[in-house]
């Protein structure tokens, strides 16, 4: 979680300095979902993200340097600078792709789960999406097919209460998106998305079910993004009191205080984790900013395999 937080805070700084461009969607405050859910997976499992997907790639084990280089548009980035923040792919780590289209990767994950089921090696697929994706057609079609065919797929809904600038309540009367899973006869759970252990527990149960051939599970994680929809969004559509309240529920602070309380780590060890994360990210930023840009002549290469 610290690595994700440190990465995104650094990315935000680099964005403000103009060293990273594009449309940048940060998930600061939502780290427990990615860390908890991916904690239930192995390297061979498939993960798909949405448009706010840095956390999922990192949690799945993507290389921080190559990720940072991609955001900086460098040739040594995972996608040779052709993807950027919304189109990260780190196939070596099983992070297949993110997407710029809300709900766009849900059907793709369905396909990976289908392939995994046919291959019979116990792989599973997991797809992350926000509450806004609950209103697109392919979301419902995918829930239906995953359930109908009992595919080894874990739907992880990061319900942060806002679809872009608009509260969920203005988009649907369905408060809990896990209710949709019920419609399609799919096991489901709604958990505290800022509690990394609760997320991990739900994801582990889902992964075990999927690997045992018992089909898909829908895990709704209630969380909150502490930043705007994208960097530069002043997020005037929400009350400061709401933001303050969620800051108190910061998933990293909550988990570290638990570790302290249970005396699993002492203060120095906790500080060390944060320090190491920041050092890794700083090193990645240095690598990325010093790396060469792609040759402009590569613009029309890799259009076809």
């Amino acid at each position, binding site marked *: 979680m610290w690595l994700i937080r440190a990465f995104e805070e650094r990315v935000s700084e680099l964005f403000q300095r103009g060293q990273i461009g594009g449309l940048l969607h940060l998930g600061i405050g939502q780290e427990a979902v990615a860390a908890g859910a991916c904690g239930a997976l192995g390297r061979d499992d*498939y993960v*798909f993200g949405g448009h706010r997907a840095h956390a999922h790639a990192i949690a799945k084990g993507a290389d921080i340097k190559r990720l940072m280089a991609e955001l900086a548009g460098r040739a040594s*980035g*995972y*996608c*040779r*600078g*052709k*993807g950027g923040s919304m*189109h990260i*792919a*780190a*196939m070596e780590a099983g992070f*297949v*792709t993110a*997407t*710029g*289209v809300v709900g*766009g990767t*849900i*059907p*793709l*994950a*369905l*396909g*990976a*789960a*289908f*392939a*995994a089921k*046919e*291959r019979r090696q116990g792989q599973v*697929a997991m797809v992350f999406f926000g509450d806004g994706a609950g209103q697109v*057609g*392919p979301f419902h*079609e*995918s829930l*239906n*097919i995953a359930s*109908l065919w009992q595919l080894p797929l874990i739907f992880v809904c990061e319900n942060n209460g806002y679809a872009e600038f608009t509260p969920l309540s203005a988009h649907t009367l369905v408060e809990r998106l896990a209710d949709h899973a019920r419609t399609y006869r799919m096991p489901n759970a709604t958990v505290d998305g800022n509690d990394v252990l609760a997320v991990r527990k739900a994801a582990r149960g889902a992964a075990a079910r999927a690997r045992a051939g018992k089909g898909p599970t829908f895990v709704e994680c209630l969380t909150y993004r502490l930043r705007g929809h994208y960097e530069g969004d002043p997020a005037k559509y929400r009350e400061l009191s709401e933001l303050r309240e969620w800051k108190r529920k910061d998933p990293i602070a909550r988990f570290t205080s638990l570790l302290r309380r249970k005396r699993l780590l002492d203060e120095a060890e906790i500080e060390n984790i944060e320090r190491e994360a920041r050092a890794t990210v700083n090193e990645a930023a240095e690598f990325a900013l010093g790396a060469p840009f792609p040759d402009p002549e590569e613009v*029309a290469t*890799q*259009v*076809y*395999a």
Partner: protein
Amino acid sequence: MAEQTYRDAIRAALREEMARDQTVYLFGEDIALGGPFGVTSGLAQEFGANRVVNTPISEGTVMGLAIGAAVAGLRPVVEVMFIDFITLAMDQLVNHAAKLHYMSGGQLRVPLTVRVQGGVMAGFGAHHSQSLEAWFVHVPGLKVVVPSNAADAKGLLKAAIRDDNPVVFVEHRGLYAARAEVPDGDGVVAIGTAAVRREGADVTLVAIGRMVESALAAAEELATQGVSVEVIDPRSLCPLDLDAVVKSVRKTGRLVIAHEAVLYGGAGAEIASQAQEAALDYLDSPILRVAAPFAPVPYSRPLEKRFVPGKEEIAAAVHSTMRGATVRPQPQNRPRSG
């Protein structure tokens, strides 16, 4: 070499590729039952329901499913029952299938074949008759093939399935019963190679899909009037075998392009533009296009007949180009009110 229908040739390609490669899977609505035109008949019995997968009516998600399966190592063939319904799958096809290889810097591959059928026939109306291939020609990352006969249908479908890129394979419903000699064995036709259907000296006639039939009929008639027409079937619209077109135009000095899709913004515009860029000095006459008016496909028989260009319109265009005259733009080929 044996005579086969277009429908049977497509089924033979699917069967042979499924037998050859265990990762080839078919997805589509009602396909385990053969589909509305019987193209996939018997394949579910032969290969099992796990490889010939009947899907719910969820075009967009089924397209995405096939793309995801392709990325994860399968070689899916997804059937969209009517090309008109591909509108529901455009996000997955255009934003994901076409771009994943590029956006991932080459990490992902999408060996996907999308079988669609379309074209005007028998009063199917505006939602079951369109020719939308030009849309896909405009999307980098997709390949688009339009087989006009049984041999090409088989050979191009095999090439599409073996290709590591998404290929949109456009069948014409009006050709399913058409018979042609189909070579024994693989008979793979390389995507991006045109075929000269008839040699000629006076006019190059490029015809797409089912228009090849009409073009050959027109050429036959024109020959009796002393006009020698060379008929070229591009077979693949993206990539396009421009060399074959240019080579012919250098010989004839005249070019007519015929397709069933609407003229405005159609694939013929791209062919015409590329041909004049590459061979303007050789042209003795304006390039002419014969295509459908700028209208949805109508239902009523006389309207439908008026919509689809036939051999008469093609022959008339050839005569015009022989005269070297420019042609007054037809108002029905342009957007207009009233």
